[in-house]
């Protein structure tokens, strides 16, 4: 990928710094490193920066940027310029201390209603599906969708699943889902379209903590059959 990136405006108070358009560990490393670097050494008017798979959303207050700017260019241009300089300076790997978390998952039929269908689609027995699914260590690429919802991957090619054509109006809290080659845990009961293969009783959303999610981008997760 080299040092290629582009900065695109998302309206007047945010830009997206895009390093690519793929689910890749290398790209995501750059993303997390850049989000950390910009948060640690912000420009005037900076509000927050958060990682997606291969891009960083940077939010700012246009009023502060304008007040502190010495040029007549647009706010978005001056933020983009400040960010470009920092992309070049940022490391390709974050210094974030990667944690490995083990999460117990219940794969019983009531906990994972889509598991039989998923196994069938993959041409595997349920036991083999679980064995392959739990053999791998998953990376947390980003959080989104719901507070504490971690997008993880990369799921074995053999286990790849389509989204449900008819999303459920309610998925139970703690449900472990697969969509494409991503996996994730619903931190709260919510509507959703992922295939539900199991359920954990570990709290993913920690509203009373100033770090309100169990998982953070860059963490690694192992599922253990309970």
């Amino acid at each position: 990928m080299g040092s290629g990136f582009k900065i695109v405006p998302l309206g007047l108070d945010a830009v997206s710094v895009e390093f690519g358009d793929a689910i890749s560990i290398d790209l995501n490393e750059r993303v997390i490193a850049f989000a950390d670097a910009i948060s640690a050494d912000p420009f005037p008017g900076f509000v927050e920066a958060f990682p997606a798979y291969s891009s960083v959303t940077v939010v700012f207050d246009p009023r502060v940027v304008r007040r502190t700017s010495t040029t007549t260019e647009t706010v978005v241009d001056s933020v983009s310029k400040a960010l470009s300089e920092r992309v070049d300076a940022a490391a390709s790997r974050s210094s974030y201390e990667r944690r490995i978390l083990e999460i117990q998952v219940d794969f019983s039929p009531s906990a994972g209603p889509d598991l039989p269908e998923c196994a069938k689609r993959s041409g595997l027995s349920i036991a083999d599906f679980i064995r392959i699914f739990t053999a791998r260590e998953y990376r947390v690429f980003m959080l989104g969708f719901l507070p504490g919802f971690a997008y993880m991957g990369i799921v074995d090619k053999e286990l790849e699943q389509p989204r449900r054509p008819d999303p459920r109006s309610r998925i139970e809290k703690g449900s472990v889902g697969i969509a494409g080659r991503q996996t994730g845990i619903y931190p709260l009961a919510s509507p959703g379209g992922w295939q539900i293969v199991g359920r954990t009783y570990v709290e993913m959303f920690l509203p009373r903590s100033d770090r309100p999610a169990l998982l953070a981008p860059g963490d690694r997760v192992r599922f253990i059959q309970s």
Partner: protein
Amino acid sequence: MGMLILKPGLLATFQDLGRRGFGRFGVNPGGVIDTAAARIANALCGNSDSEPVLEMNFPAPEIKFTSDCVFVLSGADLDARLNGSPIVSGRLRSASVGDVVSFAGRRSGAIAYLAVRGGFLLEDWLGSLGTNLAAGMGGFHGRAVRKGDQVEFGEDHSAAPRLIASHTLFPFYTPFPTVRFVRGPEHEIMTDRSAEVLRKITFSVSANSNRMGFRLSGPELSPIEPFEMISSGVNFGTIQLLPDGRLIILMADHQTTGGYPRIATIIPTDLPLVAQLVPGDKIGFHEVTLEDAENLFFEFERDLNLLRTACKFKLDAQNRP
């Protein structure tokens, strides 16, 4: 010092200007959907810009003040009444203990705001007093108000001088606005025909629209070739092109990221016009440059600052011993 909810209305929540700094944990900013109306209400009250206000849909709540207070209504015209007598919004008013605010019918717009001088005493969650319904946190017990809720006010003993916000400061609410947008990152994936349709044809607001997003119905737009992208950043006002060719405008409770092409972003100056639409209303789009969009943004900020300063001056003068 406070107010009692006599009737809850439909999903009325306390909102401020949003919760920032927790996007990396999937916590979306939320906040008021019509920022102009909410900020003008706070300016008239002499409150800080980010003071929470009660965001009300129609049917709106019926509220009894349990202490004397000074308040402002703003946003949609829901035929507001004070003890049954019609009152207009956009001005500072005094109320006495026992007075009742109610709303008799929706006349224009969709969302009204109640601000009180001194603010409401609410629950802080991650640095914001606004309600996050998905998480069940912040605001008043993390939920919409219910019948019988007693909501307390912050300290305030001031009388109300005559303060009215100029009409020109409020966005001109209409059920068929043309709103301005800047191009989004994936604007160029549309066919020329679709790009033209976006600018020339009006769309209707669909029934399944809420604080997360407004779905539009109308002509289907199409990408030049099938387009797939992975989840990346979105914003309040982002217009996404869905796989079925329809559009969705992301609103205040949008998620932090999304996986559909971002063809445009509605400018902040015009987002209040979108916020006040109801299903069936029509909306058209007009492209502006980023530079024009920023100029409009700063123009409103200047006007609001003038109002805020003038109100502070009058309120201070009134309450000088």
